[in-house]
């Protein structure tokens, strides 16, 4: 049985999200991510989750087989309900051998493993029904939109290739003008390109769905909190002239022309002996690492060394123009206090992230399940293409088939009869 994972709390923002895991070997896998790992089954333990460098507090409980709901090794991971964190977690687990659970799959597994002591539950059936209704709706929405059509097209291009290959494998005695390798190669390369383009939209899709994560960074008392308040349009953060007022990170989301900015105010960076402030500063550094965009706020006309070291999208913002005038080398000159050029900053951010393009885009990948299916398909097609002239056609066929099935998990089309129909419509075969 595959190791499955599912988000069992509702999609969207919540205080806490619960990820559920089932399958042999998940305990060993999760030990890589969670510590200290609970020493006993059935006990929810607090600890730290480490997801590719992002650490956060979390809680974990595991169940041993067969004493679990599914009868398999199971675990539940409770993490903070930030959509970004959930998404990152899912992405990391999916690339580490887990697969997304299908509707009702936990229950199905419970059945397959003979957990018959559970009472029959109409509620469960209703739940699966509801899930399948919403999955159906999602599927039909998908069929309506351009992404769905695109994927269907790609799958039918793969059907073409499969038919070409399968016809030569099943009808060697027929005169099929060679195995048409160059034409297959061209088709494969085209699909690789299309899948690549699709995968690229995943980051735009992420921006569209979850917004841009923006960290406000700068020395103490340059007015980061004032800027956040000015951007938010109300006093979200306590501001004072006293250095080091903001000791923890504070996050606020605003909408600008339909795009979400997730602003994080951070503690000012300075050498400090205050323990709480120290933690705040290290979180500030962390926030800037996790951000899609760093806004570095200054109130002196000097480009700080630290700013130059930031290796990701960044903006240098010169604050307090009401007192200090302009700094020509800054990206935006503004006054948080007076509210001058706040709109300009929003517009600069919007343009920097291709807001126009994102919001008018035909196709954006927003579901991590879709991204994982497309990634699988992409890898399989790449393998087929790279080995086209070195491996035998039976293996090439199995790569193409895998890609076809992966896309089929999105479109729902996984019946081999389609390919066989295609073979007979394309080729003249038989006695």
């Amino acid at each position, binding site marked *: 049985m595959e190791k499955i994972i599912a988000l069992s709390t509702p999609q969207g923002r919540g205080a806490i999200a619960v990820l559920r895991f089932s399958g042999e070997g998940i305990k060993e896998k999760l030990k890589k991510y969670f510590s200290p790992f609970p020493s006993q089954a059935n006990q929810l333990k607090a600890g730290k989750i480490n997801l590719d460098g992002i650490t956060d507090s979390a809680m974990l409980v595991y169940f041993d087989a067969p004493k679990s709901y599914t009868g398999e090794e199971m675990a539940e991971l409770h993490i903070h309900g930030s959509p970004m964190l959930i998404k990152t977690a899912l992405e990391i687990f999916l690339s580490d051998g887990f697969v997304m659970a299908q509707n009702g799959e936990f229950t*199905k597994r419970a059945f397959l493993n003979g957990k018959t002591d559970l009472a029959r539950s109409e509620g469960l059936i209703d739940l*699966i029904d509801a899930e399948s209704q919403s*999955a159906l709706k999602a599927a039909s929405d998908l069929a309506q939109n351009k992404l769905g059509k695109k994927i269907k097209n790609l799958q039918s291009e793969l059907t073409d290739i499969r038919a070409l290959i399968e016809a030569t494998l*099943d009808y060697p005695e*027929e005169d099929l003008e060679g195995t048409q390798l160059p034409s297959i190669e061209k088709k494969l390369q085209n699909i690789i390109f299309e899948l690549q383009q699709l995968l690229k939209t995943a980051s735009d899709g992420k921006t569209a769905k979850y917004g841009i994560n923006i960290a406000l960074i700068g020395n103490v008392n340059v007015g980061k909190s004032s800027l956040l308040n000015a951007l938010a349009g109300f006093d979200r953060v306590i501001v004072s002239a006293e250095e080091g007022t903001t000791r923890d990170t504070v996050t606020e989301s605003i909408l600008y022309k339909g795009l979400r900015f997730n602003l994080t105010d951070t503690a000012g960076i300075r050498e400090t002996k205050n323990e709480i402030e120290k933690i705040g500063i290290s979180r500030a550094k962390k926030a800037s690492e996790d951000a899609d965009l760093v806004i570095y706020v200054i109130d002196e006309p000097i480009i700080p060394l630290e700013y130059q070291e930031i290796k990701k999208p960044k903006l240098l913002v010169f604050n307090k123009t009401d007192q200090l005038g302009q700094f020509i080398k800054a990206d935006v000159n503004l006054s948080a206090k007076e509210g001058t050029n706040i709109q300009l900053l929003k517009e600069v951010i919007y343009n920097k992230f291709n807001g126009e393009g994102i919001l008018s885009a035909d196709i954006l990948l927003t579901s991590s399940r879709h991204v994982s299916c497309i990634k699988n398909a992409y890898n399989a097609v790449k393998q087929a293409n790279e080995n086209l002239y070195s491996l035998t056609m039976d*293996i090439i*066929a199995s790569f193409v088939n895998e890609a076809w099935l992966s896309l089929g998990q999105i479109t729902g089309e996984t019946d081999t009869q389609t390919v066989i129909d295609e073979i*007979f419509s394309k080729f003249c075969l038989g006695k």
Partner: protein
Amino acid sequence: MTETTNIQKQTNFDVIVIGAGHAGCEAALSSARLGKKTLILATNLDTVAHLACNPSIGGTAKGQIVKEIDALGGEMAVNTDKSLLQLRMLNRSKGPAVYSPRAQVDKFAYHTNMKHTLESTSNLYLRQGEATDIEVKNDGYSVRVATGLTYSAKAVVVATGVYLNSKIIIGKYVNECGPNGFVSATKLTDSLIGLGYQIRRFKTGTPARINARSIDFKSTSIQCGEIDMPPFSYINDNKNVKQHPCYLTYTTEATKDIILKNKDKAPVFTGEISGIGPRYCPSIEDKVVRFSDKERHQIFLEPEGINTQEIYVQGVSSSMPADIQYEIYRTVKGLENVEIMRDAYAIEYDCIDSTILYPSLMSKINTGLFFAGQINGTSGYEEAAAQGIMAGINASRFIEKKEPIVLQRSQAYIGVLIDDLTTKGTNEPYRMMTSRAEYRLILRQDNADLRLTEIGKQIGLVDDTRYNIFCAKNQQLKEAETILNQILKPAQINPVFVKADEAEVKTGITIKAALKRAKITVAILEREFGLFKDYMPQVKEQIEIETKYEGYIAKEKEKIAAAVKTENKTLPVELDYTKISGLRKEAQQKLNKIRPLTLGQASRISGVSPADISVLAVYLMGNGKHE
């Protein structure tokens, strides 16, 4: 002994098999070999194992099936080896998953050899007679034949092939007969309708047979067999059979012209033929009309036997009028002066909807009544034989009140075939193709014995000779595994790598790792290091395939392991799916019709979604009925 008991001895059986084609022969042989007193009926004993179309056995996916029948203890491969004209391995360049053995056989020898085997098998009674009625009795069935005799049995296997109400069509000429002018069976269909079966009409066709002396072989190219290939049956070792060639030629532009000119005379286009024909087996008129941009079509000339001049013309199946056939055949290169001996014809026949069968091939509406072969909507000798052996086995087990044998899709093409037939059904004559199998890399022709001999042994069809050969092969494979894990030093292997144009190594590597290199073969290892020297050729083939394709094979095995629990979860036969509220209407109806035996089978029914399967699982869990 009194007169009555003697007559009873001749009329009371355990199993009656109706039909002595490829399905009937395997069914009767397996039933008799399992100790059941078995009667096999044929409308005409000269039709036993008659090769009504190609004089050949095997081919893609079909070759694998023949090997599987052999591994289970069936007769087809053995009989093929006895009647061999030529042996080839198709798809040599396309990878081991699709290597497919194909034999040309002497069709007369094939018939005679099989008939002789039937005649000399104990417990087996071969009898001429057209079955007209199947009647349900308290303790089984009675089968009446046209002459008035009645036989009784506990189980019956219906394997009537294409003989039910068959008619052959050549232009406007329609003859109500079976293949090759043999009489058709005209009464049994009504009896089946009376028992509750829905009858469908399928069609197929065959090309003309021509006289070899009229062929200009100089304008064709010769196709010889492979001399070093192991025989079809795992138990045979007869390497040096004299092989006979086939010839390859092509249609010409003129072929197309003549067909298009006479299109209005073709029964497929005039509506004379109403049966559903297979798309994979089109007549020449079909090919020319549907694929009009193709310049020429490939034609194979295959000998029908050693003691005959008759040649089978593969690729020119037709139902055109006899005079047009002459014109068409004469346009083929080398056939300018062709002498047709038997006309090409289309044939229509009655068959049933195979979804009325359990995966054991027993009918869902008549306990003890089994169906096998073309009556189930399949096409091909091999597909028929595969169903025959399973029906024979399961009829025998039915009498013994044992669980039926159902092969999985991951175990055999036979499993794929029967699962497709009983789960999805078919709307055209069903031909096996490798692309129908999801585990093609596992279901290979070289390992059918490793997959199925043990099962055949448990069934009781595998005798000591076969089992000992199997054990010896296994023993060598086990030894080979140890050898493959031995380390070769760079000094030993590098010269070999250099010679084969492979990159050298700096540290020692296992023999297995060396063999994984593209240009290193078992033959090279044998030549350079004397490895695997005294091993059977089949074992060497195994070592090479299993090593080179190890990663891909492992991936398929993982998929099989992931599916195994669903496949093994049984569903109660009497379950009323309309009572399960969470199931969608369509799923309820489909499930009620097919009555799947396992959750796996249910999941393959079209119109049943993964969510339906989950609902089913939950329902069963609550009712605790699933074990």
